[in-house]
Structure formats: C-alpha cells, structure tokens
C-alpha cells in the first residue's frame, strides 16, 4: 500500500513548514534587533568608536 502513498507535499512537509515558520520568525527578529541597535546607538549606549 505504501507504493500508492503520494509523495509529501510542501504544504504537508514538516521541512517546508519549518522553512516558512523560520522565515517569518527571522523577519520579526531581524526587525527587533535592527531597531534596537539603532536605538542604542542614537541614545549613546553604543558610543562612537566602539564598533570596529
């Protein structure tokens, strides 16, 4: 019977679901980290000359 089982599709595959979820999470994480760094520099917490 296993021969008749259709191959896994992207919508069903945990691999692709994980890829979609990872892309969404990284979107938000990158936004948060990027804006946090901007705020830290503009408020002087990360001073000029600290970043090589």
């Amino acid at each position: 019977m296993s021969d008749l089982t259709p191959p896994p599709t992207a919508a069903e595959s945990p691999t692709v679901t994980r890829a979609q979820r990872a892309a969404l999470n990284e979107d938000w994480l990158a936004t948060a980290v990027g804006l946090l760094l901007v705020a830290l520099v503009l408020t002087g917490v990360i001073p000029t000359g600290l970043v090589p």
Partner: protein
Amino acid sequence: MVATEEDLAPATAERPVRTWPWLVLGVFIVLVLGSVARFLEDTIPAAAEGTSLEKFAAAVEYPIYAIALGLIGNVIVYYAGLRERIADAVRTEFFIKTGLVLLGASINLSLIVKAAGPAILQAVLLISSVFLITWYLGGLLGLDEKLRALLSAAVSICGVSAAIAAAGAVRAKREQLAYAASLVIIFALPSIFLLPWLADVLGLSPAVAGAWIGGNIDTTAAVTAAGAIAGEQTLQIATIVKATQNALIGIVAVALTAYFAFKVEKDADAQRPGLRQLWDRFPKFVLGFIAASAIGTWYAGTVSAAEAKAHIGVINDLRTWFLILAFVSIGLQLRVSALREAGWRPVAVFGGATLANLAIGLGLASILFAGFTA
C-alpha cells in the same frame, strides 16, 4: 534570499544531531570568517598602495572577501564533517534582514517616498513579465507544473523566500523547493560581480544601476552585495527596489494558491485565500527598514549635522558587520549537489528566464529611473 540548510535539507534519518556546542562553534566560525573579511578590507588596499595591484586592491570590496572566505570555509567544514552540525549558526536570512533594517537608518525617508512610485511600477511590470516568461519556458521544456511555479516565483520576485512562499501555495514537493533554492544561489553568485561590472561598462547612473541590480538579482543578500560593490547610492536604490519586490510576495502567493486550487487541482472545497494570508506572507523586515529610515530622518533633523553623521556612521559600521556575516553565510551554504540530481531542463529554464529578466529589467530601469536623483 537564502534559506538555511536545515530548512531545505531532506529529512533523513542520518541528519547529524545539532546541539548547543555545535551552535556555538558555528557562530564562532561565522564570526572569525567575518572578522578576517573586515580585516582584509581594511588592510589590503593600504598594503597594496604603490604596487601594481593598487587599483585592483582598492576595487575589491568587503562582499568579495566575505563570500570568498565563506566558500573556503564551506570546503573546510564539509571535509571536517561539520557542515550539517553548524548549520543552525549560518543564518543568512537573519543577518541580511538585520543589516537592511540598519541600512534604513541611513536612508532619508524622502528618498524611499520618491523612489516608491517607479519602484512599485518596475516591480509590477518586471514580476508579471518575468513570471510569465519563466512559466512559458517551463511549459516548453515540459517541467512539472509545481516546479514551474517555484522557479517562476524565484526568478521574478526574490529567490528563496519567494520559492518558499510559492511552495506552500502550490503544495510543491520538498525536493522541488530544495532544488529551486540551490538554483537561486548558484545563479546569484556570479551576478554579484557581473552586474556592477556591466553597469559600469554600460555607463548607467547610480539610480538606474541600483534599480537594475535590485530588480534582477534574485536573492536580497546578493542584491545587497552587488549594490555595495557598485557604491552607496546604487546600494540604497537597489535595496528600495528589492524591498518593494519582497513586499509583493504575498500577492503572488495568494494568486498561486487560488490558481492551483481552482484551475490545476480543481478542488471545489478549497477556501478562497484572504487578507490574512497576504499579511502572513508579507516580509515584516520591510516595516523595520521603513521605521529605521523614519527614525534616522527624524534624528538627523533634531541634532547637529556632526552628531548625526557620527551616530549614523556607527549604525553603518554595524550594518557592514551584519552584511559581512550574511555574505560569509552565503559562501558557507552553497551546495551544488542538488543541481546534478535534477538534470539540465530546470537549469535551462532558470538561465533563459534570468537572461529575459536582465534585458527587461535594464529597459524598465532605464526608463523609470532616468534622471532620478536622491
């Protein structure tokens, strides 16, 4: 954009176990390679001064060092049996998106507003025409409908992210997604060097070159690398154009979902895709990019020019670091084995579509961004 090895690797029983020590080792490797790239970028031009290599050394920018070191690192970790184990640390998507949010802080919001019109028009025309051409070429060479959809989305919009969105929309096989992702990266690598060179040979203005690079190279990371090689103004326009294309992923994914549900698979019970799916597919870092631009523009208007320049300079240094880590990751992630498995027809379709993308993109960029100034 580039997906991680874990995202795209086949789910096999042999996948090595990844634990915190491997993650730490992976982060260490990425940071060391990035630091070496930064060091080479700083020291080589000065060391080559007065020699016959002076001009060449001055022309080699940090993306080239970073990608080359990533590729060398790729070979080393592959033969050391570490590539799969450290894959969780190789986060190209995260590095590039954070770098782009930081880039937003140095772009005046008025430039984004000014470029938005031609960028949206170019994106709509380019995505539609290149998608249809790729779809047609795929049909001509007898590709599976789902692979046609994945390749068409990848070439016309923004590489791996678009392929992931399309894979979910058309319920493609995971092998097809892994294959489309490999094609995107392999075609993007030479484009990073070729397009800035061609833009120079053709004498394109920074705005036209940026619009051409942003509209053509599939992955956002590669667009940023090519833009950085071409110059700051080119990088800014290329990023705005690419971010605009990224933002249209949702619309294409929703259209593909509807097309495959009602036309290809003829599923009478399928639900009509809605606004929720559009929002789910929208790349949220674009909001961060615009927010950073708004903050940077407001800040520059409230403090002295010298203070603003110094602080934006620090943000630019941080941006360069994140972009270097992204380019190192591109080199570390490259895999050519998937290409051998799928045969020549998808490569021919992707190659043909890329050429069409180049020609149409150059025409549109030359018309829509003619006379554009920051």
